């Protein structure tokens, strides 16, 4: 039942709510059959963009084309039911007066499919999401995960060319999220449709997407594969939003080495007698530019003191299944959160720290520190202010 995915072309899309621009001239091209995730904090415009794509909201300016059809342009607004798409909603949006089966039948009835054929397709789709045995239940008789699987079946059953996902996992618990993430990833790709998925969760975005678009203030600030975003963030905002354990101002201690885009640079960490470490330089920077270093969790390693670049004190330790996550405070003041080590280091212990250059990203400093705590909601970056305060209370001693 594979479908041909639709190409989506968005050009100069703007949407105003009163004086506020929720979308500010956004451009985006989505290849047919690809799975695209739009990542951004609340207020970044991702929901508005999805609703404009669906036709629920009207664009104020710009155009949207789905396949060969211009669905939104100045003076043109194709209503949702004529855009040949389907959508999975954050709150499931199952009709409470219909059984699971009737919810899934709905799109087929709108397509005027013969009754027996529609029922067979609905049944098959419910079976594919593992809910054939619950077809006769009403939404309130299903768990949250089951309801969202019904919603997924409803979106897939019509065989449309474009699937929209509005943070479908955000109301589910951790176990259910993983199961449903897998179901969405496989079933959406199997369907052949183009998928546009929005979320504020970076790990969800990276695990689902062929390509990720990062949105901020109604604009697309970076577009690339998950690997590109992680290794070569275009800005401190993207670096922070894609997960860091700490950030700090640094000074040059050498000249860039290597080919542009994959350069390395020696930098000096803040604090008296600051250590010099090697970091990655995702994009060239001018000589006089103030620099910031963003450290990924995976870049921080606890090592024996002889191999250490700097010394730190264990402020906290948490069991994390395969090992332990430590919060390490160092002179600067610096605080590295969620530093993984298979061995448990006790609170107050002095440990050596080594930073992997690939996970230390040097970018031009941008605006005030942590511009917008809201932007970092649900992300480790939100901890930095708090942990910096913790680090500043370090007793004199083990730090270098």
């Amino acid at each position, binding site marked *: 039942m594979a479908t041909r995915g639709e190409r989506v072309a968005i050009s100069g899309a703007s949407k105003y709510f009163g004086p506020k621009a929720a979308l500010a001239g956004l451009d985006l091209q989505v290849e047919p059959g690809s799975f695209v995730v739009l990542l951004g904090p609340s207020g970044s415009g991702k929901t508005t963009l999805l609703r404009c794509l*669906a*036709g629920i909201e009207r664009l104020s300016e710009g155009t949207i084309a789905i396949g060969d059809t211009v669905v939104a342009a100045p003076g043109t607004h194709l*209503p*949702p*039911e004529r855009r040949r*798409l389907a959508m999975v*909603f954050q*709150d499931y949006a199952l009709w409470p*007066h219909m059984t699971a089966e009737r919810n899934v039948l709905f799109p087929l009835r709108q397509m005027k499919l013969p009754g027996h054929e529609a029922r067979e397709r609905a049944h098959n789709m419910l079976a594919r999401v593992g809910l054939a045995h619950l077809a006769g239940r009403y939404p309130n008789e299903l768990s949250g995960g089951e309801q969202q699987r019904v919603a997924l079946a409803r979106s897939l059953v019509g065989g449309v060319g474009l699937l929209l996902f509005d943070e479908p996992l955000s109301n589910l618990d951790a176990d259910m999220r993983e199961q449903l993430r897998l179901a969405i990833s496989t079933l959406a790709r199997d369907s052949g449709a183009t998928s546009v998925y929005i979320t504020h969760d970076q790990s969800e975005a990276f695990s689902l997407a062929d390509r990720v678009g990062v949105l901020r203030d109604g604009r697309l600030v970076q577009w690339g594969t998950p690997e590109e975003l992680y290794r070569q963030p275009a800005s401190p905002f993207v670096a922070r939003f894609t997960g860091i354990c700490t950030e700090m101002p640094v000074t040059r201690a050498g000249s860039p080495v290597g080919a542009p885009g994959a350069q390395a640079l020696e930098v000096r960490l803040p604090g008296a007698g600051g250590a010099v470490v090697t970091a990655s330089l995702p994009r060239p920077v001018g000589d006089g530019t103030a620099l910031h270093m963003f450290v990924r969790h995976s870049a921080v390693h606890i090592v024996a003191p002889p191999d250490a670049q700097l010394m730190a004190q264990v402020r906290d330790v948490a069991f994390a299944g395969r090992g332990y996550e430590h919060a390490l405070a160092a002179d600067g003041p610096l605080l590295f959160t969620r530093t993984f080590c298979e061995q448990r280091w006790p609170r107050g212990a002095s440990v050596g720290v080594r930073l992997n250059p690939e996970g230390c990203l040097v970018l031009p400093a941008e605006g005030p520190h942590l511009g917008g705590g809201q932007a970092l909601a649900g992300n480790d970056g939100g901890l930095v202010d708090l942990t910096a305060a913790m680090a500043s209370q370090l007793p004199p001693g083990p730090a270098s």
Partner: protein
Amino acid sequence: MRAKAADVVRHYGGQWLVWAILAFLVAVPVGAFLVQVFVPRLFDQGTSWFTLSNFTQAFQGHVLLGLFNSLWVSTVVCVLDLVIGGGVAWLSMRTNIGGRRIWPGMMWGLLLVPTWLMAQGWQYLTEPNGVLSQFSLYSPFVHHVIFSPVGVVLVDALATAPYAYLTLSSALGGLGSQFEEAVRVHGGGRVATFRVVVPVLAPAVLASVALVFVETMSDYGVASTLAYQSRFPMATYGIYESINNLPAQFPVAGAISILLLASAAIPLALQSRVTRGRSYAILSGRTRPATRYRLGRAARWVLTSAVGVFFLLALGAPALGAFAGSFVANLGSPLGGQALTLANYREVFSGSIAYSHSVAEGASGTSGPVLLSTMLAAITATITVVVGLAVARLLSARRPGRFTKAGDLLILGSIALPGIVLGAGYIFAFNLPITSHLGVDLYETLPLLVMGYLATSIPTTSRIMMGPVAQVHGSLMEAARVHGARALSAVRSCYVPVVSRVLVLVWLVTLTKTFWELPISQLLYPPGEATVSVAIDNWDNNYHPEVGAAMTVVALGACFVVIGLVLGGFRLLAPRGWRRLGGWRSVA
């Protein structure tokens, strides 16, 4: 810029029509009626371009006495209802009193009983040669008490107790036990607990006071029946008299209306002043249901009986009065005998007795009023539900605009508007020469009466429906559109079923309220086409209350039949999925 302008038009365009309808139904006629008090010449009601002299007339004699009476009666009723409504609320929400599952439903039932019907039931019961005298239980003392300001206060208090009950019971229900537990674990006894909890309930108490005060001030039912029979003038009846005079004194009626509206603003302003800038939020996700006090056996029996007596007085006594009175010949007349008769029912159905012109006019055809009221109420309820649903959706919009807020104010103002003022405004506005010049000849027609009904029912219904409508997430409709349904189809298949039970219940409430509506009916009914309330009132005022009682029983029966048919039909015909959603709780 053009795109932005287009957005604004699209966003607000749908609202214009709804607000225009409301403005036409309420704001324009009532506004004109009130403005003519100050600018009588504008409407050919006097020679002055600006005057306050109409207030001088309202501040003297009979009219002033009416205003004074209304004020003190409303104040006493507020206090009584705090005790009665608050007591029943506390007992049914916070104790193990018997019948606590029944009392809330009874309160809702009581809310549907028009005050004039209750007052007349008491009249039938206690008047000389009334129902009690048929059983040799007549007491001159009881008669004098009921046909006095005490009786007026009693009936008003019984009739408006549900408003106090509903505001206080929701607050008491939401008030978890944590406040009381916090006092107790920190060393406070029962008195300290009471002193802590009562201020937490302050907004509900004030809301209750405001609501009961406004309802009593604006009530016309008791004022035109029991109070009128007791020679006890009240403000709302003063408006009616001013218009019914020859020549009609619209400026004086308008002045009384303004004073009535201004007095209603007093408790509302007090409520706003006390609660401004303070948070009384008591409901949260962590609120645990309060534990119920376990009453002792004797206390439980006594208090259950007390609540039972309240409902007996509020519902039982008037019902008995009307039912038993309908079988008495010449009820309340010195000619009245002990004989029981069915002649009153024959009169209801045949209309053979020719009484005075006004009675014949009010009751000709005589089962006609029941059918007419049923038809008008059904039309009103249907239009109200459709428009009310649209208004409720606009008011509970995710992004309310300026028009929404203005509309909400208009709705709130309309709810607070007494029916008698609205009716007077209609008579005034639709009787003006300019209205006729504009080709709007609706005066003394049934469409105007229905418009009056709509003007009172749409605002209330819209507010009632806001709660259930706000609970329906917008994504249900969006999901329907995204999955291929056109706008109307989405409303029909994915929205209406979700709110269907609420719509049916609201339809029935509107039907019942309209069926028994008195002040607007009395002012606007076309000659020869009396509604149920007008016909019953005419029979009573023309010394044939026994026929009025019989018509009350017939009309009650008709009302129950319609309610039964609709509820039964919904139960039998609506798909299972529709029936399991919503319901009265979501409205309440």
